[in-house]
């Protein structure tokens, strides 16, 4: 499997999966908010609960953050 195939939006990750954030494509404001909550490029996240249409719950830097579907589509993650 090559690298590009392994990079997917956070929204597509399944519970229990871990990944490293590669890129946040959400514009200035969204990135700023995510950084403060610990979601920066290279940070490792683990999906705790994911919902087909609702927010996704992740473990990032030891805290639990629920991220709406729309936003989770703009956070790109490499599975590890």
């Amino acid at each position, binding site marked *: 499997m090559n690298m590009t195939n392994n990079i997917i939006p956070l929204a597509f990750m399944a519970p229990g999966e871990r990944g490293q954030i590669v890129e946040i494509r959400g514009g200035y404001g969204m990135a700023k908010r995510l950084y403060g909550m610990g979601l920066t*490029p290279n940070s490792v996240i683990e999906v705790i609960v994911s919902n087909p249409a*609702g927010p996704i719950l992740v473990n990032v830097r030891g805290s639990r953050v629920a991220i*709406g579907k729309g936003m989770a589509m703009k956070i790109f993650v490499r599975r590890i």
Partner: protein
Amino acid sequence: MKAKVAFIGNPNVGKTELFNRFTGQHQHVGNWPGVTVEKKVGKCVCYGNELEIVDLPGTYSLTAYSIDELIARNFIIEEKPDVVVDIIDSTNLERNLYLTLSLLEMDANVVVALNMWDIARNKGMEIDVKKLEELLGVPVVTTVAITGEGIEKLKETIVKAIKGKRRKIEWSYGKDVEEVIKELQEIISKEEKFKDYPSRWLAIKIIEGDEEIIKKIEESKYKDELLKIASRIKDGETVIAERRYKIIGKIIEEVLKKEEEEWSFSDMLDHVFLHPIFGIPIFLALMYVAFQFTFSFSAPFSDMIDTFFSWLGEIAKNNISNAMMASFISDAVLAGVGSVLVFVPPIFSLFFALSLLENSGYLARAAVVMDRIMHKIGLHGKSIISMIMGFGCNIPGILAARTIENKRDRIITVMINPLMSCSARLPVYILLAGVIFKSSAMAGAAVFSMYLLGVGLAIIMAMIFRKFLFGGEPPTFIIELPRYMFPKISNAARDMWEKGKWFIIKAGTFIFLVAIIVWFLSSFPWEATHGGVYIENSYAALLGHAIEPALRPFGWRWQAGVALFFGFLAKEAIVGTFGALAGESASVAVATWFTPLTGFAYMAFVLIYFPCVATLIVMLREIGKKYTLITITYTISLAFIVAGLIELIGYAVGIT
């Protein structure tokens, strides 16, 4: 000595509890100038020093992105507090230290409070506090805000810090960034306009491309030079954020001796509470339990109070010889006090239940569970918190909408909040439903249906507002979920008292005043009414008859109209009005004024017809004149439509 102290910290770190510990009852709640963010200021005398403590909004960082963060940051830069107390969740140093580092870069005189120390201890975490002090260059105190542990030590440390100067420690952002920072600092030091700002902080902000700071830079003659140097770091904000976490990683490596990840239980619960299918039924079930608790638990207490004041009223009537005085004491004063106190039990129970939900960590989950639906109707998951708070009182509900960043989402959330059935309307439902329905199960269902009706209408109105007032841009949702905790009864009790106080004080005085006015309107002219016996000859009747034409189609009498009029002032006054108009116990009167159908429609009307005056005042401040006017208009029209529909449907299916 006098000193200015600021409290700052991430959300969910116990900042409010700590603030309450310090200031007790000496708090003043106002607004930050020019914006609608709440400003809490308190006073505390510590070791002979008079501290003025400002509670800054809870933030994760100090960017220019959100208004809360901007307020916090401008306060620190412009007001230069003597000490900034940074409250940290001991169990999550990594994320919390991000704010701490930002504060230190601003040259703030920081004292760190490692709060929730008990949880860290119980989890088996070992944090080297001395080492952390050494690495940060500022005093660090361990605290447990909810029990008061470490508070004295923190006070002592703050007082010492007022005079003390912290050791300045600079962490390296890496060679490339540090070079740029240095060059920027050199130019910054030449510019008179920047002399109020710490130069290193300003340099970092320029690299980050901070909107507010860039605006400032553009006023300077060095602007091109500065921006050119800063542009050497590509995507500066990401680089700075990432490296700041790297610095934190190094600090934690030295400080955190032993870490136990204790999320497994909490995560397990989240698999249940955030379940894609069961999440929503669980949410509804919990809400239902909370409300049943509110009604059934408090009912006997309310009955006792009611009986007691009726009895007292009888005694007063029989023992005071002057008829007008006797009527005043028993029908105005005692009836007024009674009608206030009767609602203390259910309202306090409600706040108790809400507090348990909040402190257990569930309320934040409710926002997550509901985001899917909220998103569909054009609202934000966080709107649900505002809506749930609205069940207690629309004022905190409207204030809770402040956590929503997007202005449009916030305005819609505020506009629909009056449809959330606040606890002041609860007395009206309890009175009406209790009288017009034979079985208590029916009455309970009728009361619960008011809450559902309100939510249903709120959803419809939200969709309408989203579509016709704002072109629907989809709201983004992100929220931190605190660890589930077994809620402490003592905390819930204190919360209940703090929040319930408004009812006794604000609503209480209001109801009492209204009760006296109503007594006057219904007993005068004294001769014509024979001392309040023939109310149909009173001023109140005049008023009721004036409103009656609009209400006649609904089968409501003029008494119902008078009550609605007084309900404009405060919805809880409706019950007081019924009581005063009936001259005895309100429930007896209501039984003769309403059928089950007209009574039920009246309940719906009371739910919708107008936000109370206090709510309007807050709303005006939060969303402005235009949207407040729209809210008044839509609520009045909607009330007539819904009540009419209920009666039409009722008659159609043969209910009267």
